């Protein structure tokens, strides 16, 4: 994987969200950390084109996002924070099936892929369940399964554990650690990123630190314990 951010600026009428961001992401496990409103969620949404930069470009595996939106979205899977706002059909199998229809025209192929993906995440028994009866953790795993069933080459997760209890948070992190695809993980909880290759710290629209998880922790302790406006 190579994701390049080239001098990205992003502003809306009220404020500047991202300021002069240039990055080259190649590692297998990348963490993005920052406070609420820092711009971390916006940063990763540039990768699959959910937001567009005011200036600059984002290139994913050689594809310019603004020119190849459909292709890029095929290779980038995105899991969001709220489990309820990702599953769109009332029954688990229906949701996964609908997403797979364009890729796998044969119903049997889809059935097989869905069962296999659910089993991989340990939720095969949820196949026929009604979504609104599931717990938050179960829903999030279903959302992850729906994305993984499309076999993305890159996976982005935006605060996927924030609304989960401890048990499901650990389960999700365990699943993430075993994924073959490169993963970009956004969170405000440094603990979750201990085994990651690289951690980007975002503050007020800029990358203020870029290094190993250990370095990020040290940086955080020094800089983020001060009130806003002071320090870095």
């Amino acid at each position: 994987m190579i994701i390049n951010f080239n001098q990205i600026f992003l502003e809306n009428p009220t404020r500047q969200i991202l300021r002069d961001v240039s990055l080259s992401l190649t590692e297998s496990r990348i963490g993005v950390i920052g406070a609420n409103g820092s711009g971390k969620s916006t940063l990763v949404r540039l990768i699959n084109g959910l937001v567009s930069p005011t200036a600059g470009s984002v290139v994913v595996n050689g594809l310019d996002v603004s020119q190849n939106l459909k292709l890029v979205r095929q290779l980038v899977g995105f899991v969001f924070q709220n489990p309820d706002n990702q599953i769109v059909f009332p029954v688990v199998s229906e949701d996964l099936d609908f997403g797979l229809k364009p890729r796998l025209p044969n119903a049997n192929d889809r059935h097989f892929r869905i069962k296999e993906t659910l089993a991989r995440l340990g939720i095969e028994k949820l196949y026929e369940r009604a979504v609104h009866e599931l717990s938050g953790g179960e829903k999030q795993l279903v959302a992850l399964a729906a994305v993984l069933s499309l076999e993305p080459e890159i996976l982005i997760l935006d605060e996927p554990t924030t609304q989960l209890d401890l048990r499901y948070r650990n389960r999700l992190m365990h699943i993430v650690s075993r994924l073959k695809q490169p993963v970009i993980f956004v969170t405000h909880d440094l603990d979750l990123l201990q085994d990651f290759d690289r951690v980007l710290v975002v503050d007020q629209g800029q990358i203020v630190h870029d290094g190993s998880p250990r370095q990020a922790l040290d940086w955080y302790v020094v800089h983020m314990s001060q009130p806003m406006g002071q320090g870095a």
Partner: protein
Amino acid sequence: MNTYKLSLLNRLRHICRLGLRRTLRQVLQSMPAGFKLLGLIFFSTAFILLHNIVWLSSVALVMVWVWLIVRTERMVSWQKMWPLALSFGVIFLYMAWVSGLQEGFVALFRLIALWAAAQTVMLTTSTTAMMQVVETVVTPFSKLCRANPARIALLFGLTIRLMPLMVQQWHEVREAQQARGVKVKAHNMLVPMLVRTLNRAQALTDAIDARQLGETVQPKIQTHSPSAHR
């Protein structure tokens, strides 16, 4: 001897009725849904144009009889029916007062006939069959509006998915209002409901776009990516 004959007669009657019930139900259920709905539209128009009270009352009686036969529940649940009966009664009284007794009865029998016909169609048509008809009718329109059928399917699925969520949201808003000591009234509830709903809209839009649901997708390509394996 007499009692034996009587019970035989009763048994025969029972079998005939059962047979009639079953046959009628089967006939109606096996009719294609589109046919039944068209028939309903035709009959509704006919009822409305009909003015002869003898004809109307007979038709109404027939429809009610058919409806009663087709029902699976034995008893007519008065608890469920009384609001309907009441509203029909009110209309009858109003019409009688305004245009005379005959017109009152005309209106009443019309309403009864219409309602019983519609109920019969509903009872003999499965939801799936109904949805098929909806799909068939909507598809040519969707082509006009440049919306592909997959998006329509997504729309229906999403709507059903969201129903329990909206009920849950209502309860959440009510609890939040109560916690704040605000009296729970419709106008206090609506603004928070709407704000939460509109925020949810953005999240759902992103999730749907990210997975490209309902879109026509190009054949999957494998990009040249040196992925680092763990």
